């Protein structure tokens, strides 16, 4: 019994100090494997469920209640998220980014399931959304919880979250490089080897898991496209067009989100209204419903080419349907709809240039559709590398790489000029919570007021004379003194020795002045929970070098510019070291 207890204690100690017994990089790589397997399984499960559900629930025109289907899906999805799993409805990826930047990658275990089921309801009933964002949440939650189980520290937990994200994207698209690039470019924002290696391992494991279970299928069949210089030049126009579509999609999404919140306070009403609108759009254009991969497949293989006018209409319909689905609280991602819209834009552009310059032998519409997809992903997510690698991998074709790079980087740049924050970042940016690693804002946000608080300062009573004050500073190392009423403990202000030098050198004033008259009594007060960015603003404006920290009407210490900078440097060093 005793020995059993000892062994248990030893095991617990090993887990608690895992990183001392083994090399950190090695351990992270090792743990990338289970995270990869679980992430892969989660995406296979969702993929299979969507297929199963679509075979059971054929969303088709023939059904009389057709237009109500997306509304039912939205209701189920919202019910599942808020009532069953008690999570906030809506965008899932910003939730993961927020957790990575502000909570050390902490995510609830139930998130690994909630968004998967919610998204299944949305897509099966015809909502215009993609399965990628929910799988990303699921994968990251798995990574986070495996890290928590083994007492990982925040930094290591974030790497595990990255592993889960890469695993999810790799498995769902059968695209390992895109998984790695998405996790690092979009979510973590930090290209460091400590991140990259475990994430790569997780990505490989997840892709292979998915291949074992579903076979090594390329989502969209590879076709050989012949591309000449004219096609590459024509891509410049396509880049502009997809950028317009990307901005339109992002802006509509936010508009619908804000407007629906104003119109309907009840989340179910909001979702049902959105779903009903989607149903109505789907009545005219059934191509915009669901994840839309079938449509993409048909377009790339040049099997589906509606006339230009209808194509344009489809683009607007898909943008509206996606905004109405995701903006009203249903679970789902913007990834797949962006691909579909990009595909439509590419095809429309191809038809347009063919009509304008019929003499030139343009490459096929399917090729422009591919380029449109890459441009759209790059524009909507502000992630050109993700766009490039994803399209190369999911189409299995490398010969389109030149125009692909061109469209992706241009679309990302043009979109960024009109919309500084992507759909994933905008919400966080508005709240001032988008703090990318190794940036000034992140370092300042990490330092808490209590980290640099100078406590135990000798207080002065307000009525102390200058003579007494001079005697006091003779024997004190303090450069500033709080003036506090001894009876009420009320803070009156700060006396800064360097600000009162002129009085100190005039002995004739020693009995004529009390400290209350020479103290700095500005209204700027810092609370222990304040953001250091705000504190730095006060310092930068040059009003003062020292600020009082007040906690519930009680003076607890001061924060000085010098202390902030000393801690800032140390923080910079430790954050850059990894």
């Amino acid at each position, binding site marked *: 019994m005793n020995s059993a207890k000892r062994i248990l204690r030893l095991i617990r100690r090993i887990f608690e*100090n895992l990183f001392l017994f083994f090399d950190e990089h090695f351990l992270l790589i090792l743990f990338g494997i289970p995270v990869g397997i679980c992430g892969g399984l989660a995406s296979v499960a969702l993929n299979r469920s969507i297929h199963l559900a679509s075979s059971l629930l054929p969303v088709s025109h023939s059904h009389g209640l057709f237009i109500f289907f997306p509304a039912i899906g939205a209701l189920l999805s919202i019910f599942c998220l808020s009532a069953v799993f008690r999570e906030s409805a809506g965008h899932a990826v910003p939730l993961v980014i927020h957790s990575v930047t502000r909570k050390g990658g902490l995510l609830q275990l139930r998130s690994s399931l909630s968004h998967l089921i919610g998204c299944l309801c949305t897509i099966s009933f015809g909502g215009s959304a993609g399965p990628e964002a929910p799988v990303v949440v699921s994968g990251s939650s798995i990574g986070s919880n495996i890290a928590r189980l083994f007492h990982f520290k925040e930094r290591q937990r974030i790497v595990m979250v990255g592993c889960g994200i890469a695993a999810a994207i790799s498995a769902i698209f059968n695209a390992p490089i895109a998984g790695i690039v998405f996790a690092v470019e979009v979510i973590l924002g930090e290209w460091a080897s400590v991140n990259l290696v475990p994430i790569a391992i997780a990505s490989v494991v997840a892709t292979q898991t998915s291949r074992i279970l579903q076979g090594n299928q390329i989502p969209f069949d590879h076709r050989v496209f012949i591309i000449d210089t004219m096609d590459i030049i024509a891509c410049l126009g396509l880049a502009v067009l997809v950028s317009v579509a990307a901005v339109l999609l992002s802006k509509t999404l936010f508009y619908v989100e804000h407007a629906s919140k104003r119109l309907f306070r009840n989340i179910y009403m909001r979702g049902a209204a959105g779903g009903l609108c989607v149903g109505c759009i789907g009545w005219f254009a059934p191509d915009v419903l669901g994840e839309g991969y079938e449509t993409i497949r048909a377009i790339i293989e040049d099997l589906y080419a509606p006339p230009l006018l209808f194509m344009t209409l489809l683009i607007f319909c898909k943008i509206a349907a996606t905004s109405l689905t995701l903006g009203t609280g249903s679970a789902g991602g913007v990834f797949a709809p962006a691909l579909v819209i990009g595909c439509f834009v590419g095809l429309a552009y191809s038809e347009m240039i063919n009509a304008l310059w019929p003499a030139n032998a343009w490459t096929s519409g399917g090729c422009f559709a591919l380029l449109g997809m890459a441009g759209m992903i790059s524009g909507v997510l502000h992630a050109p590398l993700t766009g490039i690698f994803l399209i190369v991998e999911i189409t299995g074709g490398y010969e389109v790489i030149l125009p692909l790079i061109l469209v992706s980087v241009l679309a990302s740049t043009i979109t960024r000029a009109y919309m500084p924050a992507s759909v994933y970042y905008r919400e966080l940016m508005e709240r001032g919570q988008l703090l990318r690693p190794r940036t000034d804002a992140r370092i300042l946000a990490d330092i808490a007021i209590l*980290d640099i608080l100078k406590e135990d300062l000798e207080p002065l009573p307000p009525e102390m004379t200058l003579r007494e004050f001079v005697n006091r500073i003779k024997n004190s190392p303090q450069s500033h003194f709080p003036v506090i009423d001894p009876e009420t403990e009320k803070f009156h202000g700060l006396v800064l020795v360097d600000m009162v030098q002129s009085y100190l050198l005039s002995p004739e004033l020693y009995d004529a002045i009390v400290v209350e008259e020479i103290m700095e009594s500005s209204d700027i007060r810092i609370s222990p929970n304040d953001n250091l960015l705000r504190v730095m603003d006060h310092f930068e404006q040059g009003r003062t070098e020292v600020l009082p920290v007040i906690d519930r009407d009680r003076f607890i210490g001061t924060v000085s510019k010098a202390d902030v900078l000393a801690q800032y440097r140390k923080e910079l060093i430790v954050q850059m070291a990894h």
Partner: protein
Amino acid sequence: MPRNADHRIDLGEAAHFLGITPHALERWIRQGTIPCRQSDGEIVFSKPQLKAWASSHNINWQEDAKPPASVDPQAVSLAGAMMAGGFYHNIIGNDKPVILKNIVSTIHLPEEVDRELLLKRLIEREQLSSTGLGHGIAVPHPRTPLKSGVESPIVSTCFLDAPVDYDTIDGKPVFVLFLMVSPNTKVHLQLLARLGFCLRDDGFIDFLRKQPDSDALCRRVEQVEKRMEKARGA
């Protein structure tokens, strides 16, 4: 892994050595940016490991750093320093270098003090400007504290055989020199302040001119110092 108990330090000590608050250190531990170990729920650091980490990260290790302004004015006593330095009479010489040379060769100093170096430093200081305070008094001292040899301050009281011109402000010839050797600048300034206070005392200079014996002089200085502390406390 080192198991030596001496190498283990707790959170507070580690924070002190790294020059950050315990609050900030706790956050670093949570984030996993700093190497530490848990022992029965308590965070412990291995001192050599932490020191190596700090040096590899360019973070100043503040083990030897003393808290600022740790000089306790009560702890510095001019009378005590004078007792330690000793009292010497009838020092001969006609000019500064000779007098200083005679003083340095006469007085008792800790063995570690390099007398030649001390003399060189004293002369250097006098060349900069005279250390004569006026009223026939001078306080020769090195410009910067000697690197080794002096643990506690020494003030050697040296009465001259005959007053000598010392380039003082008031032009009066010097009859007594207080040679000051301090472990650091702060203590030196404290001693100087105390001597200054003594000199402001009426009759102190006349008392000195009588070349009092060591006990009488110490008693007088102690009295003045007590008065000074009383005035400060008020």
